[in-house]
């Protein structure tokens, strides 16, 4: 089954992706219910892979449930938890289950999560993972897959958008593209202008760029300081106004802010789509898009 997300990007239609964090329990009923509430409103669902190094149901298993429920999915695959054998076999499993779109990430360090004493793997980095999966498709890489049973991946990666030391991040984004990334999803931005470095820096590339946006939880904002959310910098002014607002006002003003940003992104014509994350507030996503 071809990825609808891939077809959508190819057609030029603005893609709306919602990020889903698999549960920390052995029950996928909530995943199915949440995804059902997004049906018809989002183009694809990005299934996270133990985000922030917090253990949950495997991204492959959650993604497969969503495919069975009739959704288009992008499966995240993190280098933090698996060596190249496990990454490759998970990706082959995804291909066998008709999951074509894979977001290749290095993965937030264990220090952020609930198992800080784990051994960090990082046998491959995200660039190398993309390269390995690209090669696996035609059998030129480390798998014995022959041309008689072709499969394909639609590979993507994360890109850091902001102006904070943008050049090293752009260098890495270019490597991801040269190794086979066809789409990039930025880390969360909070204003359109934050996208400028990545959009201008990669303007000569055919890669499709989706802007990441985040509807933060009140807890994330209350305890926010630069660096407290991996890879995410919230503009100082916004943090101050949200911190000062109190919980109730924050909930409505943050939703209004993200809704406006999504709408600006949609009409800007500068990005191929948007990927909406909402820590603990996933049920609000359908109202933002």
């Amino acid at each position, binding site marked *: 089954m071809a990825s609808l997300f891939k077809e959508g990007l190819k057609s030029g239609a603005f893609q709306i992706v919602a990020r889903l964090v698999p549960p920390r329990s052995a029950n996928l009923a909530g995943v199915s219910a949440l995804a059902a509430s997004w049906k018809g409103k989002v183009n694809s669902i990005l299934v996270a892979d133990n985000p922030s190094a917090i253990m949950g149901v495997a991204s492959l298993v959650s993604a497969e449930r969503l495919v069975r429920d009739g959704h288009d999915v992008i499966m995240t695959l993190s280098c933090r938890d698996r060596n190249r054998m496990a990454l490759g076999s998970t990706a082959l499993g995804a291909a066998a289950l008709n999951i074509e779109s894979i977001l290749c990430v290095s993965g937030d360090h264990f220090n952020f999560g609930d198992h800080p004493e784990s051994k960090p793997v990082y046998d491959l980095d995200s660039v190398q993972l993309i390269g390995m999966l690209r090669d696996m498709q035609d059998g030129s890489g480390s798998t014995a897959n022959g041309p008689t049973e072709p499969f394909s991946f639609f590979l993507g990666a994360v890109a850091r958008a902001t102006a904070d030391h943008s050049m090293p991040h752009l260098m*890495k984004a270019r490597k991801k593209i*040269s190794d086979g990334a066809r789409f990039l999803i930025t880390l969360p931005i909070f204003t359109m202008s934050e996208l400028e470095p990545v959009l201008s820096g990669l303007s000569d590339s055919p890669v499709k760029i989706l802007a990441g946006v985040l509807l933060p939880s009140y807890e994330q904002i209350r305890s926010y300081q630069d660096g407290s959310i991996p890879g995410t910098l919230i503009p100082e002014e916004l943090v101050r106004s949200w911190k000062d607002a109190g919980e109730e006002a924050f909930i409505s003003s943050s939703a209004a802010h993200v809704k406006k940003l999504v709408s600006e992104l949609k009409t800007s014509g500068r990005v191929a789509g948007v990927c909406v994350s909402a820590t603990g507030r996933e049920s609000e996503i359908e109202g933002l898009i």
Partner: protein
Amino acid sequence: MIVARRKPFPEIKGMLDPYSRALVAGCGTCVAVCLAGGEKEAGVLASQLMIASSVDKKEFYASAATVERQCDREFLELFRDRVKEVDAVVSLACGAGIQFFAEMYPEVPVLPGVDTSFIGVAEDAGEWSERCRSCNQCYLGITGGICPVTMCSKGLLNGPCSGPIHGKCEVDHERNCAWIMIYERLEQQSRIGLQDAPAPPMNHGLRPHPSRLVHSAYKRRFNIG
């Protein structure tokens, strides 16, 4: 050099509980420089053990001796007479030295007096930091002399993760992101083109455990000589 830290005294004392005569064996090279297991530290530990045993009213005797290196058999040989007098040894060498000691004197328990931390450098008086993970495939030629395997918390080979904030590592906000430093160093040297091509995955086949290195020319010459 190899950097180590001495184990906490209660842990060493606990390991020695079943024994009554111990040799504290110092090593005069790396662990002496990082103040964990040289001649002075061996003497101090032996004295500490004696004082503690007298407080505990336990019949116990500890003495100290230090050799140039515990990672060479000819130096370890110098301990032979001392080992005969004890029923346990606490080695303050790095993990390699402790094992070599234990291999040479299998008749006596050799206990670790330090935790071996890393291969590193002296940053400042009393301060050391890691620089090398002995991956056996040095990348420093294309990374501006800054090792991504060691200095990047994730050991990434192709650029920064998305985590650094204001140039600092997402894991330790006090430490500069290795890849931002690599980028800036290469740019300063007009060598950033070295990073155009993605680095392939590390070849872990080149770092089997345990590793062995044979210098065949030297071996040949030594054996003939």
